[in-house]
């Protein structure tokens, strides 16, 4: 039982971080950044490139590299279309995603590559009768620390208050003097840092990287933000956590004969949640017009 609880907590918390990264940008820009998955994927390749170096350096390079890519994404791709129709921004995000993915295919090929980062964490520890891989405990610990850090950033720093204000009512935030360029850059960089953390934890668990590893997390993150309520940061984190927990619960509870249909059960539950609460669990007014 303890093993299942830790499995669920670890998967749920990883999904929560992915969802938070998507929700941050959505809150401020009203943009579902589908290129977010590519940030995570590039993080994976930075880990591959820096393999063999001491782990703190690998972590630092991934954080800096992915945050820098998020910064460039905003400056080069999204800033020029910021005032455009939301559909234009959405298409831009697909274009950026496909471009980055194809560049990585060109550089490294389509096949997945093994990454030894995290091998040391694969060993199980025994807690009572349960046998739990260290990586799950590390994932839970890191994500709790990251979420505490984020709460601190958003609640206690001036930039954090500005980010929350912009996520809630972008036009009013600007009319209270919040610098749009600064807050959007800060949001993209913060979202990049979350993608880097997700990337490190994901690769430590799966041990493989390919140009396509970003797709599933971005979809999970998107669904999680919808469950939580588009525009609500807390909602996104909770939505991600619940989605992760539901995945593990169905994995454990379903009989072997229908276990391959696990995702159908998970997403049916999502539909059920949305039928009961169409605006998500923490629905907000974030879908208002962006000026």
């Amino acid at each position: 039982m303890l093993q299942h609880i830790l499995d669920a907590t670890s998967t749920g918390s990883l999904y929560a971080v992915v969802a938070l990264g998507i929700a941050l940008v959505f809150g401020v820009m009203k943009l579902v950044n589908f290129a977010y998955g590519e940030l995570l994927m590039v993080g994976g390749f930075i880990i591959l490139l820096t393999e063999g170096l001491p782990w703190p350096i690998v972590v630092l390079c991934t954080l800096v590299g992915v945050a820098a890519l998020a910064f460039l994404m905003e400056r080069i791709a999204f800033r020029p279309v910021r005032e455009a129709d939301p559909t234009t921004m959405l298409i831009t995000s697909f274009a950026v995603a496909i471009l980055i993915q194809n560049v990585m295919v060109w550089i490294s090929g389509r096949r997945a590559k093994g990454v030894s980062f995290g091998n040391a964490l694969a060993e199980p520890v025994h807690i009572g009768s349960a046998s739990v891989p260290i990586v799950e405990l590390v994932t839970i610990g890191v994500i709790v620390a990251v979420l505490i850090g984020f709460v601190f950033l958003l609640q206690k720093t001036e930039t954090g208050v500005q980010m929350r204000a912009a996520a809630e009512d972008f036009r009013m935030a600007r009319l209270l003097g919040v610098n749009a360029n600064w807050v959007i850059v800060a949001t993209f960089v913060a979202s990049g840092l979350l993608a880097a953390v997700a990337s490190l934890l994901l690769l430590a668990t799966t041990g493989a990287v390919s140009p396509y590893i970003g797709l599933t997390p971005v979809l999970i993150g998107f669904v999680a933000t919808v469950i939580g309520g588009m525009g609500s940061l807390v909602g996104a984190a909770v939505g991600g956590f619940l989605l992760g927990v539901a995945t593990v619960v169905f994995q454990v509870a379903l009989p072997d004969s229908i276990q391959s249909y696990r995702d159908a059960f998970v997403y049916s539950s999502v539909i059920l949640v949305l039928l009961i609460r169409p605006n998500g669990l923490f629905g907000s007014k974030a879908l208002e017009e962006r000026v």
Partner: protein
Amino acid sequence: MTSVLQVESLTVNYGSVRALRGVSLEVKEGQMATVIGPNGAGKSTLLWTICGVLSPEGGRIALRGDSVVGLTPEAIVGKGIAIVPEGRHVLPSLTVGENLQLARTVGRKRGAGEDLLDRTLQRFPVLSDRLSSPAGQLSGGEAQQLAIARALLMKPDILLLDEPSFGLAPLLVEGVFEELSSLREDGMTILVVEQNAGEALEVADTAYILSGGEVETSGDAQQILEETDLTTAYFGKEGA
């Protein structure tokens, strides 16, 4: 008396509609001007354009003689124009204190001392007790006080208010206009846009009646209150 805000021949399109056609107005130091007119006359468009949220097709907007056309909303706020928008737009999940904190950052850059917060909270004592409450929990009247307090903390040269009486109970409406009078007496320059013409004209110095995106009548507010048939001004000669 020096001019704080000057709008000259302002033309603004809102989508495919020409919302303002050659609107000119002036607000002088320490005075309160009001723009009244029916729904859809272009009153809110005027304020959004002054604040840089909408871009004009033509014309000039100047704050103390310097053009603000083409600047971002945050740059315009930094130059000294603060707005209390229609519907208050308090940031509901932020606390009252955080709503005020955002505005204070602008105020500090504009040379506001630490005492400005104390003075503002003395003016709106109900906010002092609610600093750590989410702004979304405030009543309509309290939210209006927060929206005005927030604007004052930016130490503006001119305060714009869009329909400050909108959605408030009659007793609270009276309170809002009393508050505006008191601010004016303290030397604040104010431009207030209102549908509630009678109340607005009673407290303002000058008035502009906007209709179909054009200034139909302008002049001394008291004179307009006494001499203009507001029903005709609002609904046309046939009445509605």
